[in-house]
Protein backbone atom coordinates (compact mmCIF):
# COMPACT_ATOMS: atom_id res chain seq x y z
CA UNK A 1 0.00 0.00 0.00
CA UNK A 2 1.40 3.38 -0.96
CA UNK A 3 2.05 5.35 2.20
CA UNK A 4 0.11 8.41 1.05
CA UNK A 5 -3.20 6.58 0.57
CA UNK A 6 -5.95 7.49 3.02
CA UNK A 7 -7.22 3.94 3.53
CA UNK A 8 -6.03 0.42 2.90
CA UNK A 9 -7.05 -0.46 -0.70
CA UNK A 10 -7.79 -4.11 0.10
CA UNK A 11 -9.99 -3.25 3.09
CA UNK A 12 -11.88 -0.66 1.08
CA UNK A 13 -12.27 -3.10 -1.80
CA UNK A 14 -13.79 -5.68 0.55
CA UNK A 15 -16.35 -3.16 1.80
CA UNK A 16 -17.21 -1.96 -1.69
CA UNK A 17 -17.60 -5.52 -2.91
CA UNK A 18 -19.95 -6.33 -0.01
CA UNK A 19 -22.04 -3.23 -0.64
CA UNK A 20 -22.44 -3.87 -4.35
CA UNK A 21 -23.02 -7.57 -3.85
CA UNK A 22 -26.06 -6.43 -1.87
CA UNK A 23 -27.08 -3.99 -4.61
CA UNK A 24 -26.88 -6.86 -7.11
CA UNK A 25 -28.90 -9.29 -5.04
CA UNK A 26 -31.30 -6.86 -3.32
CA UNK A 27 -31.61 -3.83 -5.60
CA UNK A 28 -34.80 -2.66 -3.92
CA UNK A 29 -33.33 -2.46 -0.43
CA UNK A 30 -32.61 0.87 1.28
CA UNK A 31 -29.28 2.41 0.34
CA UNK A 32 -27.90 5.89 0.90
CA UNK A 33 -28.12 6.40 -2.87
CA UNK A 34 -30.85 5.99 -5.48
CA UNK A 35 -30.89 2.99 -7.79
CA UNK A 36 -32.64 1.70 -10.89
CA UNK A 37 -34.96 3.34 -13.41
CA UNK A 38 -35.78 6.31 -11.19
CA UNK A 39 -32.10 7.14 -10.88
CA UNK A 40 -31.54 6.78 -14.61
CA UNK A 41 -34.35 9.24 -15.28
CA UNK A 42 -33.02 11.60 -12.62
CA UNK A 43 -29.61 11.61 -14.32
CA UNK A 44 -31.02 12.41 -17.74
CA UNK A 45 -30.72 9.12 -19.56
CA UNK A 46 -32.99 8.78 -22.58
CA UNK A 47 -36.23 7.22 -21.34
CA UNK A 48 -36.88 5.19 -24.48
CA UNK A 49 -33.41 3.68 -24.39
CA UNK A 50 -33.75 2.73 -20.73
CA UNK A 51 -37.29 1.43 -21.19
CA UNK A 52 -36.01 -0.99 -23.80
CA UNK A 53 -33.67 -2.66 -21.30
CA UNK A 54 -34.84 -5.52 -19.07
CA UNK A 55 -35.19 -4.92 -15.34
CA UNK A 56 -32.11 -7.02 -14.62
CA UNK A 57 -29.98 -4.52 -16.54
CA UNK A 58 -31.39 -1.45 -14.78
CA UNK A 59 -32.49 -2.34 -11.25
CA UNK A 60 -28.93 -2.45 -9.81
CA UNK A 61 -27.79 0.71 -11.57
CA UNK A 62 -26.22 3.03 -8.98
CA UNK A 63 -24.39 5.64 -11.04
CA UNK A 64 -23.97 9.32 -10.22
CA UNK A 65 -24.21 10.95 -13.66
CA UNK A 66 -24.67 10.24 -17.34
CA UNK A 67 -21.26 9.61 -18.95
CA UNK A 68 -22.82 9.92 -22.41
CA UNK A 69 -24.15 13.43 -21.80
CA UNK A 70 -21.08 15.33 -23.00
CA UNK A 71 -20.45 13.05 -25.96
CA UNK A 72 -22.49 10.13 -27.33
CA UNK A 73 -20.38 7.21 -28.50
CA UNK A 74 -19.81 6.69 -32.21
CA UNK A 75 -20.59 3.54 -34.22
CA UNK A 76 -17.70 1.11 -34.30
CA UNK A 77 -15.90 2.39 -31.22
CA UNK A 78 -14.17 0.05 -28.77
CA UNK A 79 -15.29 0.86 -25.22
CA UNK A 80 -14.17 -0.21 -21.76
CA UNK A 81 -16.64 0.29 -18.88
CA UNK A 82 -14.70 0.46 -15.61
CA UNK A 83 -16.83 -0.88 -12.77
CA UNK A 84 -19.60 -2.04 -15.05
CA UNK A 85 -21.81 -3.50 -12.31
CA UNK A 86 -24.89 -5.22 -13.72
CA UNK A 87 -24.07 -3.72 -17.11
CA UNK A 88 -26.43 -0.76 -17.43
CA UNK A 89 -23.94 1.67 -19.02
CA UNK A 90 -22.33 -1.14 -21.00
CA UNK A 91 -25.68 -1.90 -22.62
CA UNK A 92 -26.27 1.79 -23.37
CA UNK A 93 -22.79 1.86 -24.91
CA UNK A 94 -23.51 -1.29 -26.91
CA UNK A 95 -26.49 0.37 -28.50
CA UNK A 96 -24.51 3.48 -29.41
CA UNK A 97 -21.47 1.72 -30.92
CA UNK A 98 -23.61 -0.85 -32.71
CA UNK A 99 -22.60 -4.36 -33.77
CA UNK A 100 -19.46 -3.03 -35.46
CA UNK A 101 -18.13 -1.82 -32.13
CA UNK A 102 -17.15 -3.67 -28.99
CA UNK A 103 -17.77 -3.13 -25.29
CA UNK A 104 -15.81 -4.71 -22.44
CA UNK A 105 -17.28 -4.25 -18.98
CA UNK A 106 -14.94 -4.84 -16.06
CA UNK A 107 -16.13 -5.43 -12.51
CA UNK A 108 -14.81 -7.09 -9.36
CA UNK A 109 -18.15 -8.29 -7.94
CA UNK A 110 -19.14 -11.74 -9.14
CA UNK A 111 -22.85 -11.21 -8.48
CA UNK A 112 -22.85 -8.11 -10.69
CA UNK A 113 -20.92 -9.92 -13.42
CA UNK A 114 -23.42 -12.79 -13.36
CA UNK A 115 -26.34 -10.41 -13.85
CA UNK A 116 -24.57 -8.56 -16.65
CA UNK A 117 -23.65 -11.75 -18.51
CA UNK A 118 -27.18 -13.10 -18.18
CA UNK A 119 -28.62 -9.91 -19.65
CA UNK A 120 -26.11 -9.85 -22.51
CA UNK A 121 -27.06 -13.41 -23.38
CA UNK A 122 -30.78 -12.63 -23.15
CA UNK A 123 -30.35 -9.65 -25.47
CA UNK A 124 -28.12 -11.59 -27.86
CA UNK A 125 -25.40 -8.96 -27.67
CA UNK A 126 -22.31 -10.64 -29.05
CA UNK A 127 -20.26 -7.44 -29.10
CA UNK A 128 -20.48 -7.00 -25.30
CA UNK A 129 -18.27 -8.93 -22.91
CA UNK A 130 -17.87 -8.79 -19.15
CA UNK A 131 -14.55 -9.55 -17.49
CA UNK A 132 -13.67 -9.88 -13.83
CA UNK A 133 -11.00 -7.42 -12.78
CA UNK A 134 -9.98 -4.33 -10.84
CA UNK A 135 -9.94 -0.73 -11.94
CA UNK A 136 -6.27 -0.63 -10.93
CA UNK A 137 -5.46 -3.66 -13.11
CA UNK A 138 -7.80 -3.72 -16.09
CA UNK A 139 -7.84 -7.01 -18.03
CA UNK A 140 -7.55 -5.17 -21.35
CA UNK A 141 -4.59 -4.88 -23.68
CA UNK A 142 -2.62 -1.68 -24.17
CA UNK A 143 -4.26 0.90 -26.43
CA UNK A 144 -7.33 -1.24 -27.21
CA UNK A 145 -9.98 1.31 -26.28
CA UNK A 146 -11.24 4.29 -28.22
CA UNK A 147 -13.26 5.30 -25.16
CA UNK A 148 -13.25 4.45 -21.47
CA UNK A 149 -16.42 5.09 -19.52
CA UNK A 150 -17.10 4.80 -15.79
CA UNK A 151 -19.87 5.86 -13.45
CA UNK A 152 -19.53 6.43 -9.71
CA UNK A 153 -16.65 4.01 -9.37
CA UNK A 154 -13.36 5.91 -9.20
CA UNK A 155 -14.36 7.68 -5.97
CA UNK A 156 -14.56 4.22 -4.39
CA UNK A 157 -10.96 3.38 -5.29
CA UNK A 158 -8.25 4.15 -2.74
CA UNK A 159 -5.50 4.74 -5.31
CA UNK A 160 -7.03 7.04 -7.93
CA UNK A 161 -3.68 7.78 -9.55
CA UNK A 162 -3.28 4.06 -10.25
CA UNK A 163 -6.77 3.93 -11.76
CA UNK A 164 -6.14 6.88 -14.08
CA UNK A 165 -2.76 5.43 -15.09
CA UNK A 166 -4.47 2.16 -15.98
CA UNK A 167 -7.19 3.91 -17.98
CA UNK A 168 -4.45 5.87 -19.79
CA UNK A 169 -2.74 2.57 -20.63
CA UNK A 170 -5.79 0.91 -22.21
CA UNK A 171 -6.78 3.98 -24.25
CA UNK A 172 -5.28 4.45 -27.68
CA UNK A 173 -3.49 7.77 -28.23
CA UNK A 174 -6.24 10.27 -28.93
CA UNK A 175 -8.77 8.10 -27.09
CA UNK A 176 -11.30 9.57 -24.69
CA UNK A 177 -12.16 9.09 -21.04
CA UNK A 178 -15.74 10.06 -20.29
CA UNK A 179 -16.87 9.32 -16.79
CA UNK A 180 -19.25 10.41 -14.06
CA UNK A 181 -18.28 10.69 -10.43
CA UNK A 182 -19.02 12.63 -7.29
CA UNK A 183 -17.09 15.65 -6.09
CA UNK A 184 -17.47 17.67 -2.91
CA UNK A 185 -17.63 21.45 -2.82
CA UNK A 186 -16.65 21.68 0.84
CA UNK A 187 -13.61 20.05 2.44
CA UNK A 188 -14.15 16.74 4.20
CA UNK A 189 -12.24 16.44 7.50
CA UNK A 190 -9.17 14.24 7.29
CA UNK A 191 -10.45 11.95 10.04
CA UNK A 192 -13.57 11.30 7.95
CA UNK A 193 -11.46 10.61 4.87
CA UNK A 194 -9.55 7.98 6.86
CA UNK A 195 -12.77 6.33 8.12
CA UNK A 196 -13.30 3.46 5.72
CA UNK A 197 -16.93 2.99 6.83
CA UNK A 198 -17.81 6.40 5.42
CA UNK A 199 -16.52 5.58 1.93
CA UNK A 200 -19.39 3.25 1.15
CA UNK A 201 -22.15 4.21 3.44
Amino acid at each position, binding site marked *: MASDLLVNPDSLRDQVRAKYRSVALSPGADYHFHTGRGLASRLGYDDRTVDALPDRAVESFAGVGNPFSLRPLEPGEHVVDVGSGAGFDSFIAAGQVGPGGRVIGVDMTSEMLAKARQTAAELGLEHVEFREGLAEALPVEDGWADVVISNGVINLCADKEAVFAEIHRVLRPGGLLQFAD*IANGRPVPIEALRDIDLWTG
Partner: protein
Amino acid sequence: MLRDSGFAGVLTGEAADTFGGAPGEANARAFDVYGYVFLAQRPLP
Protein backbone atom coordinates in the same frame (compact mmCIF):
# COMPACT_ATOMS: atom_id res chain seq x y z
CA MET B 1 -5.34 14.67 -11.03
CA LEU B 2 -6.51 13.94 -14.59
CA ARG B 3 -3.89 16.27 -16.03
CA ASP B 4 -1.23 14.83 -13.73
CA SER B 5 -2.13 11.40 -15.12
CA GLY B 6 -1.43 12.51 -18.68
CA PHE B 7 -4.89 13.54 -19.86
CA ALA B 8 -5.64 16.77 -21.73
CA GLY B 9 -8.64 18.78 -22.88
CA VAL B 10 -10.55 18.18 -19.67
CA LEU B 11 -14.22 19.24 -19.76
CA THR B 12 -16.67 19.12 -16.85
CA GLY B 13 -20.45 18.91 -17.21
CA GLU B 14 -23.22 20.37 -15.10
CA ALA B 15 -23.69 19.18 -11.52
CA ALA B 16 -26.34 16.49 -10.99
CA ASP B 17 -28.21 16.30 -7.69
CA THR B 18 -27.38 12.64 -7.37
CA PHE B 19 -28.42 12.21 -3.74
CA GLY B 20 -31.47 14.49 -3.62
CA GLY B 21 -34.31 12.68 -1.87
CA ALA B 22 -32.14 9.70 -1.03
CA PRO B 23 -31.23 8.61 2.51
CA GLY B 24 -27.72 9.98 1.93
CA GLU B 25 -28.96 13.47 1.06
CA ALA B 26 -28.07 15.05 4.43
CA ASN B 27 -24.45 13.97 4.22
CA ALA B 28 -24.27 15.04 0.59
CA ARG B 29 -25.63 18.49 1.44
CA ALA B 30 -23.18 18.86 4.34
CA PHE B 31 -20.26 18.65 1.94
CA ASP B 32 -21.85 19.96 -1.27
CA VAL B 33 -21.56 16.58 -2.95
CA TYR B 34 -22.90 16.35 -6.49
CA GLY B 35 -22.35 14.13 -9.49
CA TYR B 36 -20.33 15.46 -12.42
CA VAL B 37 -19.46 14.19 -15.85
CA PHE B 38 -15.88 14.57 -17.06
CA LEU B 39 -14.44 14.26 -20.57
CA ALA B 40 -10.68 14.02 -21.13
CA GLN B 41 -8.35 12.84 -23.88
CA ARG B 42 -5.20 10.77 -23.95
CA PRO B 43 -3.12 13.10 -26.14
CA LEU B 44 -1.72 12.05 -29.49
CA PRO B 45 2.07 11.58 -29.45
